[in-house]
């Protein structure tokens, strides 16, 4: 409560004008994210100004500045990069606009939660990678020749999920990554890459895909090559989209770690609580479920 005094204040009103800086909107996950924000704003009758940085941290900084210039009541930022977006959070604070960071955080050494911005609501990519590894180790009885389908080269979810996965399997010498290539988070490229890698590495027994779309592409490739996904090759991925749950039910996909894109309700509620003067924790982790054949059917209707 002491720290909260340093944050800009938000008057209690029935309706706000909110800025929302989205980092990109070129994949189903992001679109579901944006949609949940839009839906919640509509439900509450608030105005939401969404900007789209098209995957560029630089453009995102310009976008946030633009929102500041428009003097919106509060800003939600889903940052592209930790460091580049941090200074602009301070600028918002200086302009008296409270900020909530969503999904990925900003550099805490420059901007501090509870001090410079209200809080961070997010997911933990490294953790996701770990959970995927954990399941795979069990499912393959500590022995697997793995093909890793990576996300867009250099992007933080790709880097972090890889890191988490590799950290976990390090202690299992039977878990061997025999090939790792980027499928750019897309189904089409995931398929193409898998087709090619299958030719070069027919001995593969497991696939770890950095997201569901690539996993679904890999399933198509495996089937075309006459292999049975789920039996000959065990697949695990991350996200928890509807198609992935369907694939789990069909026995083709082993499991997927949820990375919930629906931040809307939580984000807006947090802002309301802040306006009402409630104490906000410095970090709000969106609880991520884990889907496998035991619960896929149950959660299917809710999947995005």
């Amino acid at each position, binding site marked *: 409560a002491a720290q909260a005094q340093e944050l800009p204040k938000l008057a209690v009103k029935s309706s706000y*004008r909110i*800025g929302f800086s*989205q980092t990109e*909107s070129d994949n189903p996950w992001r679109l579901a994210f*944006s949609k949940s924000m*839009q839906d919640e704003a509509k439900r509450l009758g608030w*105005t*939401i*100004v*969404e*900007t*789209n940085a*098209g*995957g*560029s*941290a*630089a*453009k995102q*900084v*310009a*976008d946030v*500045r*633009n*929102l*500041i*210039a*428009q*003097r*919106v009541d509060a800003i939600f930022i889903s940052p592209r*990069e*930790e*460091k*580049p977006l*941090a*200074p602009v959070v301070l600028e918002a604070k200086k*302009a008296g606009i409270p900020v909530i960071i969503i999904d990925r955080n900003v550099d805490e050494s420059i901007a501090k939660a509870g001090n410079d911005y209200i809080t961070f609501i997010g997911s933990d990519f490294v953790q996701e990678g770990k959970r995927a590894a954990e399941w795979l180790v069990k499912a393959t009885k500590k022995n697997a020749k793995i093909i890793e389908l990576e996300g*867009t*080269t*250099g*992007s*933080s979810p790709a*880097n972090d999920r890889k890191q988490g996965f590799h950290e976990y399997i390090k202690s299992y010498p039977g878990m061997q990554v025999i090939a790792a290539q980027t499928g750019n988070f897309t189904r089409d490229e995931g398929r193409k890459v898998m087709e090619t890698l299958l030719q070069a590495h027919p001995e593969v027994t497991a696939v770890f895909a950095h997201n569901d779309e690539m996993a679904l592409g890999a399933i198509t490739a495996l089937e075309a090559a006459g292999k049975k996904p789920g039996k000959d090759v065990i697949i695990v991925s991350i996200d928890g989209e509807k198609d992935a749950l369907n694939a789990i039910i069909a026995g083709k996909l082993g499991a997927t770690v949820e990375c919930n894109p629906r931040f809307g309700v939580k984000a807006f509620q947090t802002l309301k609580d802040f306006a009402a003067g409630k104490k906000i924790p410095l970090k709000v982790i969106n609880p991520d479920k884990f889907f496998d054949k035991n619960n896929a059917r149950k959660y299917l209707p809710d999947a995005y």
Partner: protein
Amino acid sequence: MQNLLKQNGGLLALIVLFVFASLRYTGFLSEYNIESFLRYNAMFGLIALGMFFVIITGGIDLSVGSMAAFASVIAALMSPYGLLPAVLVPVLLCAVLGFLNGLVITRFKVMPFVVTLGMFLIARGLALIASGQQTVLLSSESGVGNLGQGDFLGFPIPAWMLFVAFALGTVFLIKAPYGRFALTIGGNEEAARLMGIPVEKVKLLVYSLSSALAGLAGVILATQFSAGQPNEGMGWELTAIAAVVVGGTLLTGGRGSVINTLVGVVLLGMIFTVLNFENGLGHININSYWQTVIRGLFLLVVVLLQSSGTRIKLNLNWKSA
């Protein structure tokens, strides 16, 4: 009179848009908004300036976006060693890559489109390799960040760099022999060669210059956002080409104006700003995909304005002949 309109079709659109936006949106004319606009668009301005000189020789440079990303990584890597290395090393490295572009274009007679498409891939690869596929943080001790984030005489430093570059560019085009040579080559390369103009040297120069300016934009990118980002600069080459064309320059080369290129950059940048502000009014809620459609339409309108202007000019010439 109408000739003026043609040459300044872009400027006209800019003025109209600017007046419209200042009247409609509060905060549009705020010092904060204008400075942040300039700070960000300075990068595109520098790239477009280099692209301009390439295009007037009848060439094209697709590698600038990757080049800027590469430079930003190098700048971040060099930042612990101080300002000078952080600026000079990336700019020089890029100039060398640009020189290579020029070398392949002149020696092996490969089309600029292909050569720079190759460099588009290569520079991106180099950026990823140099950065270890991670964002490279800028050293905060050396104060390099000031270059992108600081002010000079109350004005953003990147904006100063932009204005100085365009002033020098104008002088170079109008007064320097090599500037005129570049225009001449674009007009008719064979004739220029037969006239005894050092065609190869000029091309080497413009491609090096374009890359060096892209490198400088990359330095600004790194210092302004405190990080070298190997995945930045996607699509910047198209933005730069569009800005040059909106500035009234022919892609076939031989004609063009430096200042109108700046107008093109500002105009294209302002489209984004205006869209954001319009969204903020809350009358309509343009989601991101409608924004892309509107951006395309806007570009269409601006280019149409230009092209109908072109016809006015032709007709006029007959009358004054």
